[in-house]
C-alpha cells in the first residue's frame, strides 16, 4: 500500500511570534512559527490580519528572533530549529519568499537536550546572536557586514557550562559596548552527585552575564549572581542612553530588576482576589515597547492578566519598578507590540487576536511598586486586583485556531454534498465544537426580495476611475430593474436604461458611457445623457454578448457575429461581421491589455462542441486560429469553459498565436457552470456557479479552485460600494444577495459552538460521538476539566478564564447537542469530582431499551505526585424524546478508569486499566461476563470488526483479540513488535489498523495474510488457546506496512471521503490544529511518478531551515511507502529553470507535473 500524504489545513496554533519590519521601510509584519510552518502576517489598512506567506520547513521550529544591523532598514529572522543548524532568513518582497542568507551547522539534528536551538537571544544592536540548548551548550555568532553590505556570520564561539540547565536567555542592551547575554541557569552538578538529596533541595538558580569580547573574539562569563528560585523568564531593558540597561527577571510572584553592580529592585505581581493563596503567579509572555522618550513592558501572567511594567530611572540607576494592571486577554504564547499601535496576541489555545491600543495605561489602576513593597513575617505583602473589562485594548480582528484539536468525527449530519468535520477544539473556557466544511467562508451582507424571479444581474460604474459601482441592474424575463447604489440601494428610472425589455449585458464602455444590450439592439448611453440605439437587422435577435471595456461582440440568432469597437470619440462603431456555421452557445473577449486599444482574441463556443478562438486584429480579422470543445470565459492567460455536463475546462491561450494548450478539466457539480469575472483582494478571480458556487483565484502564487460554502446561485457580478469594498452580488430564486468572500487560501470554513468545558490538569480527554438518530442528527460529546465554583461573574469566562480552585478538582459534563440549531438539548453535570473519559453508544441484544449511551468516568483522578483515583464508573444512559434528552439508567463501579468503551456483539466492551472486559446489561448494574487481564499497560482504544477486537494499548501499540463464544473467552492472538505510545487509532480492514503515536508518527500495521487465514481456519480453537508467544507476547506479530512522521501529535484519525463520489482517505487532526489526509494510490505509475518527483524535490529544493527532508520524515522510524504531498506541492514555487530541469528528468513538461499535482489534490478535496 502506497499513500500520498497531504496537509489539508495548515496548523493554526502558534508557538512563537516575532514582529518587525521584514519587508523593509515602515511596514510592520509578524512572523509566526506554527510547529513546522513559518508564516508571515501583516495587518492591512482595515486592521485585518492577512497571511502573506506560509512556508512549510519540514522541521520543528523551536525559537524565533529578529535582528537589525545598525543603520539598516530591514529586519532579519533567526530560526532555531531541530536541524542542528542556525538559519538566518530574509523576506524577499518581490518574490514573496523567505531567502536563506546563512545556514551554519553546529550539532546533531533532532530536539536534544544539549544541542542548541531551544533558546535564541539577540544583541539589541544586532551585532551578535546567542543560540542555547536546554543544557550546557550555548553558542555565540558574531553578525557583521562585508564591503558589499551583505550580512556575514562568524564561526561559533562557545559559552558552554556543563551540568547546567538553562531556563531563559536574553540579550542585554549595553549600547555599543561589548555585547552581553544574560541567562537564568541552574547548576545541578552537586545535586547529581549527592545521593541524600540535600544538594538537590539547596540547588540555586543564578543569573549569569556572558560577555562577547569583540576585540579578542572570545566569550567569557562576566558576572553571576543568585536569583530567586522561581525565576523563569528574562526581559531585556533598554540601555545605551535609552534606559538603565540590565534585565527584568520574571519569577514566581515577583518581577525583579537586575544589573551588574546594581542592587535588586523588586516588586510583587498583583494577584486576583479570588486566587487561592497557595497558587503562585507566573509570567508566561512579555513584550517591550520602546519609543524615543519612553519605554514600557507588557507582561502577561498564566491567568491572562497583562501588566504594564515601568522603570523609574535616573541614567543607570533604577529608582522604582512599577507594575500596573493593564487588561486581561486570553493567555498567549507570544505578545507582539507593533509600532503601528497594534498588539498581536498569539494565543496559547484558541483563536489569536489583534488588538488596537486605546490607551497605554496612563489612567490610575491597581499598581504594585518596589517602593511600597512590604515584608512581614509571612513574606511579602501581596497586592490584589479585580479583573475588569478591556480598557486599554480593543479587539479588531481574530485569527481562528483549532489548537488543540482533541477529537474529530467526519459525518454527513446535514445531508450536504460533502460530509462535515465535527471537531472538538480548544481547552478550558475556550473550548468549542467546530463544524468544518470544505470551502471558503462567506459573510452575507444583505439579502433582499425582488418582485419576480430575476435571470441576471450586473453592476456598472459610471466612470472608469470611479472607485465604487453606481448601479445594480437586474434583468427579469420581460423587464429590467435598475438600482442605484448610494447610502441605500433604491430603484431609479433616470439611468437611461431601457426597462421594458430583458437585458443580455450591461457594462461600462469606453471611459464613461454605459451600454445595455437587449434582444433587439444595443443601447449606448453617453455620459451627458445622449442615447444611441443600434437595432438588429430584420427580425433577428441578439442571443449572446461578449464585451470588454473597448470591444463588443454580439451573436445574432442563426450564428452571425457582429463586432463593434469604441473609437477615439467614444462612439460605438460596427467594424466587422462574421458568419458562424451554427448558433453560438457563448462568447467572450479577453480584457484589454494594459496600454492597448484592443484585445486580440475572441472565444466563441458553439453547440457543435467546439470553442473557436477568433482573432480581432484588423489585418487578419476573424481567422479561426484554434478549436476545442465547450462554452467559455477567458481570465488573463487562461480560457476557462464550463461544459454542459458540469465540468470546468481550463486551457492556456498562447498570447501570440492563440493556440490552446495544456487542457485541464474538473467536475464542479451537476449543473452547467456559469462563469463570472470578479475582483478578490484587488485581483481578478473567477466565480463559477454550478450546483454550488466555486471560486478560482490565485493565492500565494498558486491557482486554487475552491467551493464556497453558500447556496446555489443563478447569476453573479462583482460589487463594490463604500460599505463593502470587494463583494459579490448574486441572484438566486427571487432574492438579491450581496456577500463577501473571506479567509482566502483556507481549505475549510468553520462554525464554532462554544462549550462550557473547563479543565485544569493535563490529560484532558474529550470524546465525541456523532450519531444520526431519526431525522435530526444529534451529537453527544463530553468534556471535562477542573473547577469547583459556580461562576456568577458578569465577565465572560472565555476572556478571563475560570476562577481557580485548589488542584485535584474536576468538573465534567455530558452534553447532547443538536448541531443544526447548535443548541444544547441536554446537559448533565457530573457530581463529586467525577470526570468522564470515554463514551460510546451501545445496543444491547434482546434488551428493550434500544440504543443506550455508555460513559466511563473516574472520580478524584490525580496524575501527580502519583497517578491515583478514588473510583471508576460506567454510567449507562438511555435516550428520550427522540434522542434529545438523557436519563441515567444505572451506574456500575469498576476498579480502574475506563478509558475505552465499544459495542461488541450486542454487549459492551470496556478497557479498564490493563483489563479488557465484556459487560452485559443487567437490571441494576452491568454484569461482568468475560475478561482478559493480559494487556501490558492501559487500554486506550477498542475497535471491533466481526468477531475480532483490535485493542490499542497506551504504550504498546495494537493487540488483536478474538472472542470465542463457545468458551466465553477473549484471546490475544497477535500484537505489535514496536512499543508505540498510541494517541489515535482507526480500523482500516479486517487485518489492518491505522495508528498514531505521541511522537508524531502515523503508521499502519497489518496481520500477514497467511497468519490471518490460519487464525480464521482454526476450527477447534485449540491452536489459538494453547499457542504462546515469546517473552509474554502474543504468538503472532503484525507487520508495519506504512510509516510516516507527521511532525505533530495526531489526536484523531478517521476514514472518510471529502468529495462527492471520491475515494476514501484517512483524515487526521493534530494538536496544533492542522488537518491532513492520507490517500492510497491506485496505480503503480502514479507511485513511480510521485516518488521520483519527491526524490528530485528533496534534492533540488532542500527545506528552508536546514533539516534534511528524508531524515525529518524518518525521525523515529524510517519512512515507509508514503509520499510527501506537501513537498511535491512546493514544485510550483521553484524557479522556472529548476522546474524545467526536474520535469526533463521525469520526461514530462512542468505543466504536466502541475496537472498531476492538481489531479491528486482533487481526488482528496
Amino acid at each position: 500500500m502506497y499513500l500520498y500524504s497531504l496537509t489539508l489545513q495548515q496548523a493554526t496554533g502558534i508557538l512563537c511570534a516575532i514582529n518587525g519590519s521584514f519587508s523593509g521601510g515602515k511596514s510592520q509584519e509578524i512572523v509566526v512559527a506554527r510547529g513546522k510552518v513559518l508564516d508571515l502576517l501583516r495587518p492591512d489598512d482595515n486592521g485585518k490580519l492577512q497571511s502573506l506567506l506560509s512556508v512549510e520547513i519540514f522541521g520543528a521550529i523551536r525559537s524565533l528572533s529578529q535582528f537589525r544591523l545598525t543603520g539598516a532598514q530591514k529586519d532579519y529572522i533567526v530560526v532555531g530549529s531541530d536541524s542542528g543548524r542556525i538559519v538566518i532568513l530574509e523576506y524577499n518582497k518581490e518574490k514573496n519568499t523567505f531567502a536563506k542568507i546563512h545556514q551554519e551547522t553546529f550539532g546533531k539534528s533532532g530536539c536534544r537536550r544539549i544541542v542548541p536551538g531551544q533558546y535564541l537571544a539577540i544583541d539589541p544592536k544586532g551585532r551578535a546572536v546567542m543560540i542555547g540548548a536546554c543544557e550546557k551548550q550555548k553558542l555565540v555568532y558574531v553578525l557583521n557586514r562585508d564591503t558589499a553590505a551583505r550580512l556575514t556570520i562568524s564561526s561559533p564561539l562557545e559559552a558552554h557550562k556543563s551540568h547546567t540547565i538553562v531556563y531563559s536567555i536574553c540579550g542585554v542592551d549595553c549600547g555599543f559596548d561589548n555585547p552581553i547575554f544574560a541567562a537564568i541557569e541552574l547548576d545541578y552538578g552537586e545535586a547529581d552527585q549527592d545521593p541524600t538529596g540535600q544538594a538537590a533541595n539547596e540547588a540555586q538558580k543564578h543569573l549569569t552575564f556572558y560577555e562577547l569580547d569583540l576585540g579578542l573574539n572570545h566569550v567569557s562569563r562576566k558576572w553571576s549572581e543568585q536569583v530567586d528560585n522561581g525565576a523563569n523568564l528574562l526581559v531585556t531593558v533598554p540601555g545605551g542612553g535609552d534606559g538603565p540597561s540590565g534585565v527584568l527577571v520574571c519569577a514566581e510572584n515577583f518581577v525583579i530588576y537586575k544589573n551588574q553592580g546594581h542592587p535588586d529592585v523588586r516588586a510583587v505581581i498583583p494577584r486576583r482576589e479570588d486566587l487561592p493563596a497557595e497558587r503562585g503567579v507566573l509570567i508566561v509572555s512579555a513584550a517591550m515597547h520602546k519609543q524615543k522618550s519612553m519605554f514600557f513592558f507588557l507582561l502577561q501572567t498564566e491567568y491572562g492578566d497583562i501588566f504594564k511594567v515601568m522603570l523609574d530611572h535616573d541614567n543607570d540607576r533604577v529608582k522604582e519598578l512599577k507594575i500596573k494592571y493593564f487588561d486581561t486577554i486570553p493567555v498567549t504564547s507570544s505578545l507582539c507590540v507593533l509600532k503601528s499601535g497594534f498588539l498581536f496576541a498569539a494565543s496559547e489555545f484558541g483563536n489569536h487576536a489583534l488588538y488596537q491600543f486605546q490607551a497605554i495605561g496612563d489612567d490610575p489602576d491597581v499598581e504594585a511598586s518596589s517602593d511600597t513593597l512590604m515584608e512581614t513575617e509571612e513574606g511579602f505583602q501581596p497586592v490584589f486586583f479585580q479583573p475588569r473589562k478591556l480598557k486599554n485594548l480593543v479587539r479588531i480582528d481574530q485569527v481562528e485556531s483549532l489548537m488543540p484539536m482533541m477529537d474529530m468525527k467526519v459525518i454527513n449530519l446535514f445531508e450536504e454534498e460533502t460530509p462535515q468535520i465535527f471537531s472538538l477544539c480548544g481547552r478550558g473556557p475556550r473550548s468549542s465544537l467546530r463544524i468544518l466544511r470544505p470551502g471558503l467562508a462567506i459573510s452575507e451582507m444583505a439579502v433582499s426580495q425582488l418582485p419576480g424571479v430575476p435571470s441576471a444581474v450586473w453592476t456598472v460604474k459610471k466612470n472608469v476611475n470611479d472607485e465604487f459601482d453606481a448601479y445594480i441592474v437586474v434583468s427579469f424575463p420581460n423587464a429590467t430593474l435598475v438600482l442605484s447604489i448610494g447610502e441605500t440601494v433604491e430603484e431609479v428610472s433616470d439611468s437611461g436604461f431601457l426597462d421594458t425589455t430583458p437585458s443580455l449585458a450591461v457594462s461600462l464602455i469606453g471611459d464613461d458611457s454605459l451600454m445595455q444590450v437587449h434582444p433587439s439592439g444595443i443601447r449606448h448611453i453617453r455620459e451627458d445623457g445622449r442615447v444611441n440605439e443600434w437595432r438588429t437587422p430584420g427580425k433577428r435577435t441578439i442571443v449572446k454578448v461578449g464585451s470588454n471595456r473597448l470591444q463588443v461582440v454580439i451573436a445574432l440568432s442563426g450564428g452571425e457575429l457582429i463586432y463593434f469597437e469604441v473609437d477615439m470619440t467614444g462612439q460605438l462603431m460596427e467594424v466587422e461581421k462574421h458568419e458562424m456555421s451554427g448558433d453560438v452557445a457563448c462568447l467572450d473577449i479577453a480584457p484589454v491589455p494594459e496600454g492597448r486599444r484592443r484585445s486580440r482574441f475572441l472565444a466563441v463556443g458553439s453547440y457543435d462542441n467546439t470553442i473557436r478562438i477568433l482573432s480581432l486584429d484588423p489585418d487578419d480579422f476573424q481567422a479561426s486560429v484554434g478549436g476545442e470543445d465547450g462554452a467559455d470565459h477567458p481570465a488573463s492567460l487562461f480560457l476557462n469553459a464550463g461544459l454542459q455536463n458540469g465540468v470546468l475546462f481550463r486551457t492556456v491561450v498562447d498570447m501570440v498565436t492563440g493556440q490552446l494548450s495544456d487542457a485541464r478539466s474538473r467536475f464542479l457539480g451537476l449543473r452547467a457552470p456559469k462563469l463570472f469575472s470578479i475582483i478578490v483582494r484587488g485581483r481578478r478571480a473567477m466565480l463559477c456557479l454550478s450546483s454550488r458556487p466555486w471560486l478560482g483565484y490565485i493565492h500565494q502564487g498558486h491557482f486554487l479552485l475552491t467551493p464556497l460554502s453558500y447556496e446555489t446561485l443563478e447569476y453573479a457580478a462583482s460589487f463594490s460600494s463604500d460599505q463593502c469594498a470587494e463583494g459579490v452580488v448574486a441572484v438566486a430564486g427571487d432574492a438579491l444577495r450581496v456577500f463577501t468572500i473571506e479567509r482566502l487560501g483556507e481549505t475549510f470554513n468553520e462554525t464554532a459552538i462554544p462549550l462550557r468545558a473547563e479543565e485544569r490538569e493535563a490529560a484532558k480527554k474529550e470524546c465525541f460521538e456523532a450519531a444520526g438518530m431519526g431525522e435530526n442528527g444529534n451529537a453527544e460529546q463530553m468534556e471535562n476539566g477542573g473547577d469547583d465554583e459556580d461562576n456568577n461573574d458578569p465577565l465572560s469566562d472565555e476572556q478571563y478564564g475560570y476562577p481557580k480552585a485548589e488542584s485535584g478538582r474536576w468538573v465534567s459534563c455530558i452534553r447532547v447537542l443538536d448541531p443544526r440549531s447548535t443548541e444544547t438539548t441536554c446537559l448533565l453535570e457530573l457530581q463529586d469530582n467525577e470526570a468522564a473519559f470515554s463514551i460510546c453508544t451501545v445496543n444491547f441484544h434482546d434488551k428493550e431499551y434500544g440504543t443506550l449511551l455508555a460513559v466511563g468516568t473516574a472520580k478524584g483522578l490525580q496524575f501527580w505526585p502519583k497517578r491515583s483515583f478514588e473510583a471508576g464508573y460506567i454510567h449507562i444512559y438511555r435516550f428520550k424524546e427522540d434522542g434529545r434528552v438523557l436519563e441515567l439508567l444505572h451506574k456500575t463501579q469498576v476498579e480502574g478508569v475506563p478509558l475505552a468503551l465499544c459495542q461488541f456483539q450486542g454487549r459492551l466492551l470496556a478497557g479498564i486499566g490493563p483489563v479488557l472486559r465484556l459487560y452485559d446489561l443487567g437490571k441494576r448494574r452491568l454484569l461482568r461476563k468475560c475478561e482478559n487481564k493480559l494487556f501490558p499497560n492501559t487500554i486506550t482504544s477498542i475497535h471491533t470488526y466481526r468477531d475480532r477486537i483490535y485493542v490499542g494499548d497506551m504504550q504498546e501499540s495494537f493487540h488483536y483479540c478474538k472472542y470465542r463464544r463457545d468458551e466465553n473467552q477473549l484471546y490475544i492472538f497477535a500484537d505489535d513488535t514496536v512499543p508505540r505510545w498510541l494517541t489515535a487509532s482507526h480500523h482500516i480492514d479486517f487485518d489492518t489498523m491505522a495508528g498514531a503515536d505521541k511522537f508524531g508518527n502515523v503508521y499502519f500495521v497489518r496481520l500477514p495474510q497467511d497468519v490471518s487465514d490460519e487464525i480464521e481456519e482454526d476450527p477447534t480453537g485449540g491452536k489459538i488457546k494453547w499457542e504462546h508467544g515469546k517473552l509474554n507476547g502474543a504468538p503472532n506479530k503484525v507487520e508495519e506496512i506504512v510509516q510516516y512522521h507527521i511532525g505533530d501529535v495526531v489526536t484523531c484519525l478517521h476514514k472518510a471521503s471529502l468529495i462527492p463520489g471520491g475515494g476514501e482517505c484517512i483524515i487526521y487532526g493534530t494538536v496544533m490544529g492542522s488537518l491532513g489526509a492520507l490517500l492510497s494510490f491506485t496505480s503503480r505509475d502514479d507511485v513511480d511518478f510521485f516518488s521520483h518527483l519527491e526524490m528530485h524535490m528533496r534534492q533540488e529544493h532542500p527545506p528552508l531551515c536546514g533539516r534534511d527532508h528524508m531524515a525529518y520524515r524518518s525521525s523515529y522510524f524510517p519512512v515507509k511507502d508514503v509520499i510527501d504531498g506537501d513537498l511535491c506541492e512546493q514544485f510550483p514555487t521553484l524557479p522556472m529553470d529548476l522546474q524545467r530541469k526536474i520535469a526533463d528528468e521525469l520526461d514530462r513538461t512542468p505543466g504536466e507535473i502541475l496537472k498531476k499535482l492538481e489531479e491528486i489534490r482533487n481526488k482528496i478535496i
Partner: protein
Amino acid sequence: MSVFGGDSWAREAQCRKRRVDDLLVEGIDASAYKKLPNGKFTCLVCPHNPILDTPLSLSMHGKGSRHRAAESRRKERELWRQEELSKRLALSNCVTSTSSSNVSYQQCKRGGKPLIERTRKAASEIFSYEIIEQRNKCRKPDAESVISSCLYGQSIERKEGPVEMMVARKEVVVDQVQQLDYRERRERELQFTAAGWKRDCHGRWFKDENVEFDSDEEDPNVVLNDK
C-alpha cells in the same frame, strides 16, 4: 551563500561522475540488471541477485567469471525453453489427431501432467453434460430438490417418475426440521455459554464463579431440558 549553490566545483564533478556512470551502464544489456529505488543496482542474471552500489561495480561484476557462468547458464536455459515450447506446440497438434502414442506420452510427462490433464478434461466434459441435463430435468420439479441437494451436500441420483419424487420430498422435510431444531438448540447453548454458564462432566450447567448474573436469569438446566 555559504553552502548552497554558487559556483562550487562540486556540482560539475557530480555531473561528470554521472556522465561516466551513464556511459558505463550504457554498455550493459538493460535486461541484465535493474536499478533499485535507492540508486543501487542489482544483477538479474546471477541467481542470488547481488546488489552493486555503483555502475562501475556493476560493470566490473559483469566481467566476473561467476556472472559469465550464470549468463551462459541462462542462455542455455532460454534455448532449452524455446525448444520445449516448439515441441509442445507440435505435440498439442499431434494429441488431437492420434489419441496416445508412446513417444508423445513420455514427452508430455516431462513437461506437465498429461494424464491428470486428460482426466480433468474428460471429467469437465462429463460434468458440463450432466449440468445441462440436470437443468433440463430440474425445470419441472420444484425448489425442494435443489434444497435437498444442498442439504446433503452432494447431488443425489434422480429417477424418473412422480412417486419417487414425493418420497424424496417427505424425507427432506423431516430432515430439515431436525436440523433446524438442532441448530436452534446449539444456538441456545451458545447463548448460555456466552452468558457465563459452564458444563460439568455430567452435562449439567453451573455458573462460572468469575461471571456476574442477573437475579432472574434463566437456568439452562431447566430451559434446555424442557425442550
